[in-house]
């Protein structure tokens, strides 16, 4: 009796630690089963799925916020951790998902893709992303990354009748499976290489044990196998984060997927994978001399690669894909500072990364959101030509797009500017002057193609055939765009509020 009571107490505490993810998962089941119960002819039947999804994510975020000030706890014998860092990451993930759901409904109806499975996959991918943020063990991490990835492969191909969407799904799936192989192989080698590191003297996949081992053994205790394992794992991560030279899939997948999926995928994957990279690089701080140079090279290649390739794009979705690659480079630059001087700038770097991830989420979802808002029945708004003379046709779309372009380009008074300023500040105080200079030059290149969009919208006459009717307007999309615009400007003018909100993230369980 007492024994089983104790077991129940342990399991209960375990489940509490992953409560937001569990809530999202259960909502996924409800939508999956509910969708088949609601009669298809009912006029409000289809509206039920996004509503349930919205409420489920909101409840998960509520539970997440109630524990934001509480102590760090590990659960399931160290498989997952519930620390302030993961709570902040889950908050950002939830915000991204809610915005994406708001953008989706009318767009999907117009494309005749409004199936319940869409929301099920959104919820399960969010479940995977939330677990990625709280994984403290490499097997759990792998399973959660795959849950996110498999959902996104299917979402990318959700418009099954469009060739581009099919191509996007297949390309993403094949390359993603390849990257998963690298990741898993890396995990196996890290497991083998951790043999001499952990205090128990056994091989382990637990990140806190590996961190403790690295802290006590230092660079001398690390085997070649461990380093190769870490390198292979980072190939897998770099693929998911779309760092150059592992970015090849990004433009095709972003362009081919339904725009609502692109918006969701661009924000969610970046947040999730960069929280993982942050956690693992924090664990690897004692051996930062091994990875510091490589990570910097990766960041520089990514910023310049993304921006230079974006310059020639005429398709806005494709341009935003390359721009998301460039932004991954900026974020990577901030992440690198975690390892400088044995973790001296750890807190600064995490603050800057989380702030930039928040800014990136708002402006990317906003920019894709405007494209969704402008898409009409049977016609996706994708190219620069579609945006010509927008300011006369649709001033709301034009002016909101203007804000997002300024924010993406890092021009004040937007949140993108404040984010870049924070990264700059971190890099300068950590003594990474070359990286800061590269960031500056890369941003200057990016201003060209962001302003080209503004030029098209404001100073070009619209083509005859681009004039579209306003018959179908989506209040959800308009609301989401409004929220992102207001927040982008508000946090650009009053960044301390966002900084204070995200500040607990520096409390990250490493060892």
């Amino acid at each position, binding site marked *: 009796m007492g024994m089983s009571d104790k077991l129940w107490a342990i399991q209960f505490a*375990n489940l509490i630690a992953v409560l937001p993810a569990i809530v999202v998962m259960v909502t996924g089941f409800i939508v999956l089963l509910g969708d088949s119960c609601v009669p298809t002819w009912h006029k409000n039947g289809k509206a039920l799925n996004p509503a349930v999804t919205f409420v489920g994510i909101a409840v998960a975020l509520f539970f997440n916020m109630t524990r934001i000030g509480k102590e760090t706890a590990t659960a*399931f*014998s*160290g498989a997952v951790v519930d620390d302030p860092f993961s709570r902040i990451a889950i908050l950002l993930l939830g915000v991204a998902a809610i915005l994406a759901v708001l953008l989706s409904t009318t767009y999907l109806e117009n494309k005749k893709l409004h199936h319940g*499975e869409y929301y099920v996959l959104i919820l399960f991918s969010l479940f995977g992303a939330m*677990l990625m943020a709280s994984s403290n063990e490499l097997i759990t991490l792998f399973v959660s990354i795959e849950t996110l990835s498999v959902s996104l492969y299917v979402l990318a191909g959700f418009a099954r009748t469009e060739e581009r969407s099919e191509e996007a799904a297949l390309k993403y799936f094949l390359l993603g499976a390849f990257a998963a192989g690298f990741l898993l192989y890396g995990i196996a080698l890290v497991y083998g290489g951790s043999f001499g590191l952990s205090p128990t003297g056994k091989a382990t996949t*637990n990140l806190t044990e590996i961190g403790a081992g690295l802290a006590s053994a230092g660079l001398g205790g690390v*085997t070649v196998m461990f380093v*190769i394992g870490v390198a292979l794992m980072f190939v897998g991560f770099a693929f998911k984060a779309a760092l150059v030279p592992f970015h090849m899939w990004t433009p095709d997948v972003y362009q081919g997927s339904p725009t609502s999926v692109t918006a969701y995928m661009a924000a969610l994957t970046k947040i999730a994978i960069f929280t993982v990279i942050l956690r693992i690089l924090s664990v690897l701080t004692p051996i930062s001399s091994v990875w510091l140079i490589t990570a910097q090279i990766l960041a520089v290649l990514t910023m310049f690669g993304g921006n230079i390739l974006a310059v020639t794009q005429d398709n806005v979705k494709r341009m935003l894909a390359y721009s998301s690659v460039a932004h991954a480079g900026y974020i990577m630059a901030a992440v690198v500072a975690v390892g400088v001087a044995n973790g001296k700038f750890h807190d600064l770097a995490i603050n800057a990364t989380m702030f930039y991830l928040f800014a990136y989420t708002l402006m990317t979802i906003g920019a894709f959101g405007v494209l969704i808002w402008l898409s009409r029945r049977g016609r996706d708004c994708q190219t620069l030509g579609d945006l010509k003379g927008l300011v006369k046709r649709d001033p709301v779309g034009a002016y909101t797009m203007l804000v997002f372009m300024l924010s993406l380009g890092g021009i004040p008074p937007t949140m993108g500017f404040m984010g870049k300023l924070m990264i700059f500040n971190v890099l300068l105080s950590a003594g990474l002057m070359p990286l800061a200079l590269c960031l500056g030059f890369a941003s200057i290149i990016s201003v060209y193609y962001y302003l080209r969009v503004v030029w098209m919208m404001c100073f070009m006459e619209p083509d005859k055939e681009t004039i579209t009717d306003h018959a179908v307007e989506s209040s959800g999309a308009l609301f989401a765009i409004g929220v992102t615009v207001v927040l982008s400007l508000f946090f650009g003018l009053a960044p301390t509020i966002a900084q204070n909100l995200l500040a607990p993230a520096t409390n990250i369980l490493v060892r």
Partner: protein
Amino acid sequence: MATVIAFWVLAILSVVASIAMVVTKNPVRSALALVGTFICVAAFYILLSAQFIAAVQVIVYAGAIMVLFLFVIMLLNLGSPGALRERGSLQPIIATGLGICFLIALLLSGSLLSLPLPAGVRPAEYEPLGTVRAIGINLYDPNQPWLFPFEATSILLLVAVIGAIIMAKRKV
């Protein structure tokens, strides 16, 4: 002693089967030789007290995956084996060279990567993880970290099933 004899018998069988797989001209025979290799590998796992992996090897590889292979070979209707032969290709030579490089790398990897195998101790006795019982206990023991990822895998599989239905069905 019995394990040593069993090892050498299996070793010869597996090498012969894998050479046969590469050399035979008929793709169906080649696939069947691959089945033989898989079964030999499964027997190796049993020698290492890894019964669970041995069973999975037979069910998944020798069973499911090989059936898939044979299906594809038969569905493709490749024609006579002679027509499939490549002439003047450098591939066999390069493959042999790379294979030898890989063999050398494997032989040297113990010292290069400082693999942590204590001398004189067989892995199965060192940590009896491979038996079905040990795997079951490890997966479901709340004091081990594997329960959670094991359960989370069910969501991963569910997503894969949903995805397959969405992509494959003509009308959702």
